[in-house]
């Protein structure tokens, strides 16, 4: 794959704003999303349904957690935009807000609805004032933002809207804000367990994880944290929560790979005055991870070219570090053809050209039954395992 086609491939993996909003809504129990937009709001939800076997966005015979305003109009969407839709959209808010399990109602716009200056924010504000379900507006960047912008914007809207009382933070209690909880499957469960384990090793207890699949109570438990640990997928939300609760803020990168995990531990450890403890954990765990993976890395992985196709810069940065640790070389022209490893989501048929390790969003082809993290030391072992398997499978195909 030459650099040009690689950049075209990267373009093909790019996902827009609303996809990220959907991922976020799927990651909050009791959350509903009203999209001022056409029926394609439903078909878009199917992408998340295919990525997450336990997605709650579109249950077969329940209430869709992604509602669209077109349901009330019997005309072509383009033509309907010239009519006064306020009462009809308000009716959608009232209907969704009255559902017994609706804890949080978020609202945003599809791209062409974003242009027409419809008072969605005002309608959301009016319904928020009525009490009951929490109602928040997610300013749409559907015409220009990426899915990661959508995820972050949803977290920010939640950070502004949920109840967070200042001065309740406890020492050693942390809120981790900015975790990308893309699905309710064991790869994410493994990541969450590993994050909590690393922090526990530093003597810190996670009281709230954004986002994690928990509901409003999980989000509002952030007020109990004396420290907000900011992961890269919702930096602004972490700042808002820290400001609102008076907690300290510690920004860290994604702990993917040995170096990044060590940096994560050192940064947090230094912030809480436990740098020496962090170093001790690192000495112990990094050595063990190397021992456990050396045969896979040295016999099967090292020395190959690697191609990273990700529109998620945080994941891409982590994978670049991982590739160095695995002894992989930068992929370039002529690396397609089977020997090279490729770390990419499943938006294309990368398996025909590479030893493909599906990672990133979306991942349609892997739905693990057992925990399979990719963060921290546990994630490092799993990635070594998966990279080796991809190599061997590719070689076995000839």
């Amino acid at each position, binding site marked *: 794959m030459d650099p040009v086609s690689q950049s075209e491939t990267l373009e093909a993996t790019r996902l*827009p704003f609303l996809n990220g909003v959907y991922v976020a809504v799927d990651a909050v129990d009791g959350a509903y999303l009203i999209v001022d937009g056409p*029926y394609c709001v439903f078909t878009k939800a199917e992408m998340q349904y295919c990525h997450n076997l336990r997605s709650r966005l579109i249950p*077969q*015979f*329940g209430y869709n957690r992604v509602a669209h305003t077109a349901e009330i109009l019997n005309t*072509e969407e383009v033509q309907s935009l010239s009519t006064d839709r306020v009462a009809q959209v308000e009716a959608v808010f009232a209907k969704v807000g009255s559902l017994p399990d609706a804890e949080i109602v978020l609202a945003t716009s599809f791209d062409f609805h*974003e242009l027409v200056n419809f008072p969605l924010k005002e309608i959301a504000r009016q319904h928020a004032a009525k009490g009951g379900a929490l109602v928040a507006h997610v300013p749409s960047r559907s015409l220009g933002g990426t899915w990661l912008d959508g995820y972050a914007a949803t977290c920010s809207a939640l950070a502004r809207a949920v109840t967070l009382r200042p001065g309740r933070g406890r020492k050693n209690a942390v809120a981790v804000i900015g975790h990308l909880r893309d699905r309710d499957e064991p790869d994410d469960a493994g990541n969450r367990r590993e994050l909590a384990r690393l922090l526990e090793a530093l003597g810190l207890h996670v009281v709230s994880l954004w986002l994690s699949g928990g509901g409003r109570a999980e989000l509002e438990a952030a007020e109990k944290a004396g420290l907000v640990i900011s992961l890269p997928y919702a930096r602004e939300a972490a700042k808002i929560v820290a400001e609102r609760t008076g907690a300290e803020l510690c920004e860290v990168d994604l702990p993917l790979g040995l170096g990044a995990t060590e940096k994560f531990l050192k940064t947090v450890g230094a912030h809480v005055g436990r740098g020496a403890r962090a170093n001790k954990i690192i000495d112990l765990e990094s050595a063990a991870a190397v021992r456990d993976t050396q045969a896979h890395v040295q016999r099967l992985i090292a020395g190959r070219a690697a191609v990273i196709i990700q529109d998620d810069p945080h994941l891409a940065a982590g994978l670049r570090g991982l590739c160095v640790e695995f002894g992989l070389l930068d992929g370039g022209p002529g690396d397609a053809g089977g020997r090279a490893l490729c770390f990419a989501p499943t938006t*294309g048929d990368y398996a025909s050209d590479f030893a493909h390790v599906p990672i990133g969003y979306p991942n349609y082809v892997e739905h693990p039954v057992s925990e399979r993290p990719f963060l921290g030391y546990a994630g490092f072992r799993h990635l070594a395992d998966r990279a080796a398997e991809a190599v061997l499978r590719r070689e076995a195909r000839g």
Partner: protein
Amino acid sequence: MMRDEAPGINPARGRDAARRPRRRLGREGLSYVRELLGGPALGWELETASLGDLALDAALVKGSRRLELRLGWDGADGVRLSTRGPDGDRTEDEREVMRAAAAGTAATSFAGLFARLGRDSLLYADPYGGSAPSRFERYVRIVDHSPDYWKFVYPQARFLEEEISFGVRYAKVSHATLECQRNNAQLTVESLRFFADDSGPRSETDGATYTDTVITEADVVGGRTQEMLNAALERVAREEKPAFIHLKTTCLPELVGDNPASAIARLDKELGVPVLWTSKTRDPGRMYEAMLERLLGDAPAAARGPRVVLLAGIPSPQAEREATALLGGLGLRVAGALFPRLDVPPTADLRSAGAVVWLNPVGWEKIEDGAFLKRGLAVVRHHPPFGLAGGRRWLDRVASVLGLDGVEQAWTKALEPRAAELEALRRECRGRVVALIGDQSDVEQLTYSGRALGFSVAGLLGELGFGVRCLVWGAGAGARRPPTASGAGTVEFVPFSTRAQLDRALGRGIDLAFTHFNHDPRLEAHGLPGFTEAAFEPGLEGLLRTGRRLLRRCAARPFPRHRDGLPPWTS
């Protein structure tokens, strides 16, 4: 004869118009109506003609004038001729043609007229099949599905014209935002899809190139979207030199007023690259028909063989082979196949073919047959040949419209070599019970012949020997019917009105159930597999394959001894 449209085109077609009951006139019917109305002799041309339940609506045109006529039932056995607008407003010319039409219809019986027109009428949607809401209306546009615990049937209105493959040298241009482009799971594997009959990318690209304009906020605010569209079309036409471009415009560019019409005209004129433009707010059927007209070109009528046909609406190569053999039994030679592929050299085939025979027209309703009728071809468009009864009816219709004999012989020749295998299959199917579930309307859709699917699911299951159990929601206890014979199998009716009743019914001796959901929690709670109309194939070989396929599904029930552990759906 024609003006700008072929007879039979419905001028009021919209997004779902394809599902409305529509029956049009065939070649012989058109010819008869033309004579009956007497217009051609007076310089009037027949512009449109459509057949309703109790009336024929026609429009005659002469210059800029248009006269709409209705031939309806007069209450006895005669034809009542009426026209739109007050008689006093008519010109002498119009009164003259009205007098001619009245004279033509005076001695005509209503029943005779309709029998004659029905002889080769074209079925675009089943007359009783248009009433049920499609998946779009009944599921996608609805957010609250909580009351629909009983609903398993969400038929998809197919728009197969979108699947037409025009050949290798064509280019697709999509004028859309990134949000719009990434609005479905096209690249996923079919097992993951929400609906069981959505199986990955539907369009066959055949190596077509693909260009996205990817409109951003800056493009909209800067007023550049029209420019982007024109530039994309220009680049593709000049650099890729395709046989034609398929342009799709979407909501946002149409909202801001982008219009490619002048660019399309220029590319056609200067570079000879035609553009097929489909959009959100325009009727795509006409666009496809215009392209079809262009592809067909002008074929002289003289060289056509009355026993040479084109086969249209091909669901699979196997179905094409079997239909070709069946038609061969009637003495017909299939000279070529159309739809979804249109990359055969059509003019060569058209020169030899005297008729177009639709194999499965369901889903192709937006493609009308004006282009064929205009060239003098007869058209056979009726229910597809699913199963024994359906296959025989299809063959009868072909023979009837084309004036052929030998149906019995052709059918026997096709049936005999497969009879033993069919009987063996039936013996296996007789031990299996298949559930069709829904309200009365849903169950009717699945049990009555024709309807939206073009065949009866219950009828075909019966032909295969299955026991069909219809679970009817809200029907009341009086709707219960014990198993009675249906084909080689049985059919029974069991009413239910609560979740608990449905759940109990699903747990009682059912092997397989019809559902449009790919993963239906109601069935999965009992380890039951599902199926849709997609499991059925036309033809006799198709029927055998269908039976084997359904039997395999019946056997594929996981956790045979541990189903108590499956999560319930009723809580």
